C-alpha cells in the first residue's frame, strides 16, 4: 500500500500567504456551518453522524495509518466512549459537555490497557487482540453484573442537550454544530500531532522499525501511547454518537462497527487526515444506498469495495485526489 | 555449449549490478568466476536462476532462460547451491535429501542416496538429525548433495569454501573433482579462493564491478603473472 504524508494542503504548494489562509478558513467555517440551516432534520442528522464517523475513522488512522499498528477493534472504544457518556448523563445527570473529557480519558486508559500487552510484541498480536475485543464487546455490555449501569440489552435513552443562552437554533442544529466543533478541534489536534516531531517518529516506526529502534526510540512505549491517543479520539466520536442518536444499546456496537471504521479508513485514505473525512462520509452514505437492495448487501458491497480499493486504489480517495493534484501541478509550467 | 551468456545484465530494483557479461560453461566442463567481493559473482548465479531482474541472453542447451520462473529453470536441470547454502535447517538430513530429489520420478533415487552417502559419510551418520544442528562443513556437504540429487546437467556453486576450515575445504574440492570426472555435470563455480578454483576449472572469467576484465583457459590465467598480481592477489 502506498503511504504518503499529508503534504498537499492548499497552503503547502501554493505558498501560504496570510490572507489566503484567512479566506480559506472563513470559507471552511462557512461550509461547515451552512448545512445546519440548509438541510432538513433527517439529512442534518445523517450529516452529523457522518462527521462523527469521520472522527472515529480519524482515531483509527492515527494508530493504523500513521503508526502502522493494525487495529480491528476500534469499535470497542467507540462503544466505551458512548457508554461512558450515556451512563454519566442518565445516571448522574451530567451535562453532555462535561462527559466528553471523562469519556476521552476512560477510552485512553482502556486503549492503553489493551495495547500494552499486544504492542510489545508486534502487529499481528494487536490485530488478533483487537479483533477479539471487538467480537466480545456486545457480550460484556449485556452482562448482568453491569446491567444496573448499562441497562443491559435494553440500553439507555438520552436526550439531546438544549441550545444554551437561548440561541435561536433547534437541538438538532445545536447538536450538529457541537459535533462539528469537537471534530474540528480533534482534526486540528491530530494534524498538529502528525506534523510534529512525534508524528515523524510514528511514521518512522511504521516505515522502518529497526532503524527507529537504532535511533534510540522507545518503540513500544510510543506505540502504546499512540494507541491510547487513537482510542481516545475514536472514543470521543462514540460519546458524540450516543447523544446524537439519543440511545445506546449493546447491539449497536457489534464487531461490525470496527469493520466499518477499518473500511472507512482504507477507502478514505490510509494515513490521511482528509481521507478520514471521506471515510466518514463513505461509511454513512454507501450502506444507506446498498441497504435498499438487501439486508446483507451493504456487507457484501463493503467487502467488494474494500478489496477493490486495496488492489486498485491503495491510497483511497485521498490518494486519488493527491494523484490528480500532482498531475495538474506538473502540467502547469 | 551447455550454458551461454551473452550481454547478461542484472540488478535489483534500481541498482544495476551486472553490465553485460559474456561467458560459457562447456558440457561437463568447469568454469570459474573470480573476483573481489561485490564484483557481481553471486548476482551472476542468481541471474541464471531467475532470482533477480535480468536482461540479455542466457541459453541453456539452446533454451533461453530469462523470463522463466526459478522452479522452471531448476526443472530444466540447473542446480544452484546459493550463498548461505539453501539447506532446510528445520528438516532432517534425510528430508533434505528427499527434497533434493523432489522433481525426480525415476527409480534410481534410492541408489543416488546411497552413492551420495558414500561420498559424504558424515551425512549418513547424521541421517535423522536436523540440518540446523550440523557443522558448517557438513551443511555445505548437505547443500552439494541436495543439489546433485536433482541429477542436474549444470551445477552452480556459490563460494563452497566460504567460512570453512582448510581441511574441510580440501574435502569438498575433492568431491567436486569427483563430480567433474565421474558424473559429467557442468559446473559454474564462484570462488574467492582463486588458486583452488583455477585448479579445478578449465575456463575462468575475472569479474570487476559487474564487468569481465579478463578471461581465458584456467591454466593460462594461472600462469599469467600480471593477472595474478593485480586481480587475484597471490
Amino acid at each position, binding site marked *: 500500500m502506498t503511504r504518503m504524508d499529508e503534504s498537499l494542503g492548499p497552503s503547502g504548494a501554493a505558498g501560504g500567504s496570510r490572507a489566503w489562509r484567512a479566506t480559506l478558513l472563513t470559507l471552511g467555517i462557512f461550509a461547515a456551518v451552512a448545512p445546519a440551516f440548509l438541510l432538513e432534520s433527517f439529512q442534518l442528522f445523517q450529516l452529523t453522524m457522518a462527521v462523527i464517523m469521520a472522527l472515529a475513522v480519524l482515531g483509527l488512522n492515527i494508530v493504523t495509518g500513521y503508526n502502522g499498528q493494525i487495529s480491528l477493534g476500534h469499535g470497542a472504544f467507540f462503544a466505551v466512549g458512548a457508554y461512558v457518556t450515556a451512563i454519566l448523563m442518565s445516571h448522574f445527570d451530567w451535562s453532555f459537555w462535561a462527559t466528553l473529557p471523562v469519556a476521552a480519558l476512560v477510552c485512553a486508559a482502556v486503549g492503553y490497557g489493551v495495547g500494552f500487552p499486544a504492542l510489545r510484541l508486534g*502487529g499481528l498480536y494487536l490485530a488478533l487482540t483487537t479483533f477479539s475485543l471487538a467480537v466480545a464487546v456486545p457480550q460484556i455490555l449485556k452482562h448482568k453484573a453491569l446491567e444496573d449501569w448499562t441497562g443491559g440489552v435494553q440500553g439507555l435513552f438520552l436526550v439531546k442537550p438544549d441550545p444554551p443562552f437561548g440561541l435561536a437554533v433547534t437541538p438538532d442544529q445545536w447538536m450538529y454544530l457541537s459535533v462539528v466543533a469537537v471534530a474540528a478541534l480533534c482534526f486540528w489536534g491530530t494534524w498538529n500531532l502528525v506534523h510534529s516531531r512525534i508524528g515523524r517518529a510514528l511514521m518512522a516506526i511504521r516505515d522502518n522499525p529497526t532503524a527507529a529502534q537504532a535511533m534510540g526510540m522507545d518503540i513500544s512505549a510510543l506505540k502504546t501511547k499512540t494507541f491510547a491517543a487513537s482510542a481516545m479520539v475514536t472514543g470521543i466520536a462514540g460519546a458524540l454518537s450516543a447523544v446524537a442518536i439519543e440511545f445506546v444499546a449493546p447491539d449497536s456496537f457489534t464487531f461490525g462497527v470496527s469493520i466499518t471504521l477499518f473500511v472507512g479508513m482504507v477507502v478514505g485514505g490510509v494515513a490521511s487526515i482528509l481521507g478520514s473525512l471521506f471515510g466518514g462520509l463513505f461509511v454513512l452514505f454507501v450502506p444507506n444506498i446498498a441497504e435498499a437492495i438487501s439486508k446483507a448487501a451493504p456487507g457484501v458491497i463493503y467487502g467488494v469495495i474494500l478489496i477493490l480499493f486495496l488492489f486498485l486504489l491503495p491510497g483511497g480517495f485521498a490518494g486519488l485526489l493527491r494523484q490528480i493534484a500532482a498531475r495538474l501541478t506538473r502540467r502547469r509550467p | 555449449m551447455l550454458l551461454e551468456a551473452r550481454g547478461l545484465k542484472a540488478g535489483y530494483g534500481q541498482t544495476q549490478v551486472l553490465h553485460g557479461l559474456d561467458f560459457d560453461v562447456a558440457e561437463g566442463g568447469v568454469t570459474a568466476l573470480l573476483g573481489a567481493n561485490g564484483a557481481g559473482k553471486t548476482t551472476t548465479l542468481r541471474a541464471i536462476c531467475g532470482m533477480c531482474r535480468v536482461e540479455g541472453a542466457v541459453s541453456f542447451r539452446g533454451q533461453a532462460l530469462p523470463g522463466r520462473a526459478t522452479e522452471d529453470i531448476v526443472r530444466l536441470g540447473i542446480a544452484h547451491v546459493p550463498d548461505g547454502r539453501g539447506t532446510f535447517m528445520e528438516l532432517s538430513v534425510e528430508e533434505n535429501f528427499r527434497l533434493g530429489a523432489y522433481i525426480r520420478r525415476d527409480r534410481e533415487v534410492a541408489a543416488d542416496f546411497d552413492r551420495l552417502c558414500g561420498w559424504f559419510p558424515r551425512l549418513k551418520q547424521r541421517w535423522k538429525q536436523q540440518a540446523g544442528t550440523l557443522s558448517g562443513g557438513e551443511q555445505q556437504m548437505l547443500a552439494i548433495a541436495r543439489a546433485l540429487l536433482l541429477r542436474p546437467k549444470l551445477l552452480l556453486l556459490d563460494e563452497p569454501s566460504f567460512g570453512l576450515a582448510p581441511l574441510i575445504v580440501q574435502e569438498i574440492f575433492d568431491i567436486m573433482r569427483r563430480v567433474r570426472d565421474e558424473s559429467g555435470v557442468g559446473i559454474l563455480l564462484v570462488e574467492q579462493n582463486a588458486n583452488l578454483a583455477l585448479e579445478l576449472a578449465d575456463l575462468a572469467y575475472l569479474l570487476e564491478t559487474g564487468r569481465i576484465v579478463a578471461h581465458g583457459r584456467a591454466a593460462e590465467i594461472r600462469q599469467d603473472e600480471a593477472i595474478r598480481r593485480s586481480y587475484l592477489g597471490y
Partner: protein
Amino acid sequence: MNGLAHQIVAGIATGGIYAAVALAIVMIYQATHHVNFAQGEMATLSTFIAWSMINAGMPYWVAFFATVAVSFAIGVAIERLLMRPVQNAPELTHVGVFIGLLLIIGNATGWIFGYTTKSFPSPFHSDKPLAGGLISAHELGSTVVTLAVLLLVWAFFRFTRLGLAMRAAAYNPRSARLVGIRVGWMLALGWGLAAAIGAVAGMMVAPIVFLDPTMMLGILLYAFAGALLGGIDNPMGAVIGGFVVGVLENLAGAYVVGTELKLTVALAIIIGVLVVRPSGLFGRVVYSRV
C-alpha cells in the same frame, strides 16, 4: 464429581473443533506469516453447502466428503485469485483482504441462506447413554472425527512427498524453489487444506451451536486463543492449545462465569497468554516488523 468429568469430556469435544480451526489458522500462518481472519466465515459457508446438500436428500457422509472437496477447491481459488496478487504487499493490505473476504462470505451466506437459525443433523446417534451418560453420541463422534482429521493432516505432512514439499515451501520458500517446488501452488494447497479442515470443524460444531451466518465467529476466537496458547508458529502446539482452551472454556462456563461471557473468556485467555507467555507453550515469539 461426575459433573466435573462431564465438563472435561465435553470440553475435549469442543476443544477438538477449536484445535481443527486453530490448525487451519496456523497452517496458513506458517506459510505466509498472516492470520486469516476469514477462516471462520469460510467454514460457515462450507457448513451451509453441506446443509444444502443434505436438504437436497444427499446421504450425510456423501455430503460430508463432497463439502470437504468443494471447500478445498474454494480455498485454493481464494489463494490464487485474491492472495497471490498481494503476496508482496504490506501487512495492512493482507489484513484488509482478509476482512474483505470475511465481509463478502459472511454476508453472502446470510443473503443466500437467510439469517434464521437452522438445525444441522448429526450423523452420530445412540439409543442408550454412553459411558453412564458421561458423553453424548455426537460429542464422542465429533471427537473421533476431529482426531482422525488431525492425525491425517499430521501423517500427510510427515510422510508424503507433497507434505514435505509444503513444509519446505513454508520454512524456506527460496530454497524450495531451488529444488523445483512450485511454492505458489504449495500456498494454494495450504489454503485448500485449511479450508477443508475448517469445513469439518463447521460440520461437527453445527449440530451443537446451530447453523447461522455468524456461527463460527466465537469459535474463531477460541481457535485464536488456542493457537496463541500453543504457539502460533507450531501446528502441534496449536492443536494442544485448542483442546486446552476447550476444556478451560467448559470449566469456566460451568463453575466460574456462566455461559453469558463465553467470548469474553476467549478474550481473557488471549490477553492472558500475551501478558504471561507471549510465545505460547510451544512456540517462539514473533516480533513482526510492523
